[in-house]
């Protein structure tokens, strides 16, 4: 394992019953980069993210995160995970939610900074059940990054939020990457792909292509990332 990689997924298989969610995926995420996991709904993005943070175990292959073979509970201290659904305690306030996730990671001193980053410090006393969807997503992000993880796994973090907030989110992500955090962001929105340093295109549980957005365009033979993706997907099927 090369120390330059935060995540090293090697020939991973995962099935749910007869459905093959991941069918021999190999990909590597370099430390400090924003890696975009792209693919249509049901492609295997969420399964891959859950595998990286040890929530599911692979039926074959290996997953190495921050130098440790997964599942390894010791690594989890250094991982932040934002689930697709804003998983929060609705009866607690914004600050209470963030403070809870800080406490279980032993990082109570990060609460103010995390709430500042997602611009919820002023709303810290609001009860989560009274917040808008966008604010909940921001609170959920704060919970994922409050312990300053080395690796941040974001499962479709911008689904259901308005374009303005999406721009803000990507601004947070870039600032974190600049500070040395590795980010894995899954999305099925192609215009987000251009904001990543490297991309992995996933379909039917397989990695179709990997590289920088420019590489993907070149491999797909199109200036448009979406067309390049469709071309690569079509090539694999034929």
């Amino acid at each position, binding site marked *: 394992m090369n120390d330059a990689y935060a995540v090293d997924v090697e020939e991973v298989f995962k099935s749910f019953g007869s459905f093959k969610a991941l069918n021999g995926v190999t990909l590597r995420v370099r430390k400090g980069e924003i890696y975009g996991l792209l693919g249509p709904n049901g492609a295997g993005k969420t399964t891959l993210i859950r595998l990286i*943070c*040890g*929530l*599911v*175990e692979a039926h074959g292959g290996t997953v190495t995160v921050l130098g440790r073979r997964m599942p390894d*509970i*010791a690594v*989890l*201290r250094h*991982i932040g*995970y934002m*689930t697709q*659904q*804003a*998983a*929060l*305690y*609705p009866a607690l306030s914004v600050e209470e939610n963030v403070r809870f*996730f800080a406490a*279980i*990671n*032993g990082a109570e001193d990060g609460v103010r900074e995390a709430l500042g980053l997602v611009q919820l410090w002023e709303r810290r006393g609001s009860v989560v059940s009274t917040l808008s969807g966008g604010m909940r997503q921001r609170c959920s992000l704060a*919970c994922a990054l409050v312990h300053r993880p080395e690796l941040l796994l974001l499962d479709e973090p911008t689904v259901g939020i308005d374009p303005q907030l999406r721009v803000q989110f990507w601004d947070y992500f870039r600032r974190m990457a600049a500070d040395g955090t590795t980010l894995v962001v899954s999305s099925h929105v192609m215009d987000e792909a251009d904001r990543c340093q490297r991309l992995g295109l996933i379909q039917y549980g397989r990695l179709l292509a990997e590289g920088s957005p420019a590489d993907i365009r070149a491999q797909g033979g199109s200036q448009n990332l979406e067309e390049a993706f469709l071309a690569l997907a079509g090539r694999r099927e034929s």
Partner: protein
Amino acid sequence: MSGRRVRAITRRLLQGFRRDRRTVALLFVAPIVILGLLGYLMRGSSNVPNVGIASQDSGPLGALVASSLKSSSHIHAVDINASDGDAKLKDGSIVAYILFPADFTRQAQSGSVAPDVHLEGSQPGEDSPVLQALQESMISLASQVAGRSVNFQPRVHHLYGGRNYDTLDYFGAAFVGLVVFFLVFVITIVSFLNERSQGTLERLMASPLRRGEIVLGYMLGFTVLALIQSAEVLVFALAVLKIHNQGNVLLIFGMEALMAIAAVNLGIFLSMFARSEFQAVQFIPLVVVPQVLLSGIIFPVSIEPTALQWLSDILPLTYAVNGMRDIMVKGADLTSSGLQLDAAVVAGFCILLIVAGTATLRRRLA
């Protein structure tokens, strides 16, 4: 009002149930299980209570009544020495003993008999078969022997409880524990499911938290609530309802706390087998009702059919209810081996459920 729209709603409802086989099964299986259990409990080949007979009668009546009692279908009568009676009541080998005094036949001849009936008294359900059997045997025999009508006035003595005790005193002890057990179980199972359905459990599992820490944290949190509730229930039962209590209040509270901890862990464990709050609530009739029927709250375990006694013997509530009655009705303290056993079994169940809950946590998450 449109018939078509109403039909659409009705059809939608039934379609949903078609895919939720578990709910359908519960809808049709649970009533049969519960009523079947009740039927077997009340009409199955019930065991009858053991009753000691001590006849000191110098005349023939005592022996005649004793032999009639031995053929009674209400009780299982055995000969004992009058001096052993109280000891046997205390060790639980008999639920009552009947003493015919030396002048018993003479009493009948003078028109009024008063045998002494000593009842254990902590479970009212065990008393009536004893008095019924005695009355049936007495009525015909006493008048045959005396050759005249005889007035039958047994002198009833209670080892525990007694005339000052009403129904609430007997059931109250058990219900104080049951109320706490039931409510804590429902709240725990539903909140643990919330943790799963709102996605926060997934987050917790992707954190450095260990499974045991999650279960223990939950247990402590709910236990705090349960202890406050236990204290409230206890104060209400003793101060407002004025349920008789012979025992130490702290011991009652301790037993309630053990029941609450068992209920918390039962809730956490069973939440692993439900996918929604709806399915969680379905555990109530299956988990709680049989325990209420079989734990001795209403029907004494000693007179249940033998097969149900085995079932009663593995239910935690049986021991909890027994412990509560031992404390409140019998005034037992921690030197009592019965109470030690009850507390140990309930505590053992708590540990078993903590281990089971922790072990099944990951399985349902993956």
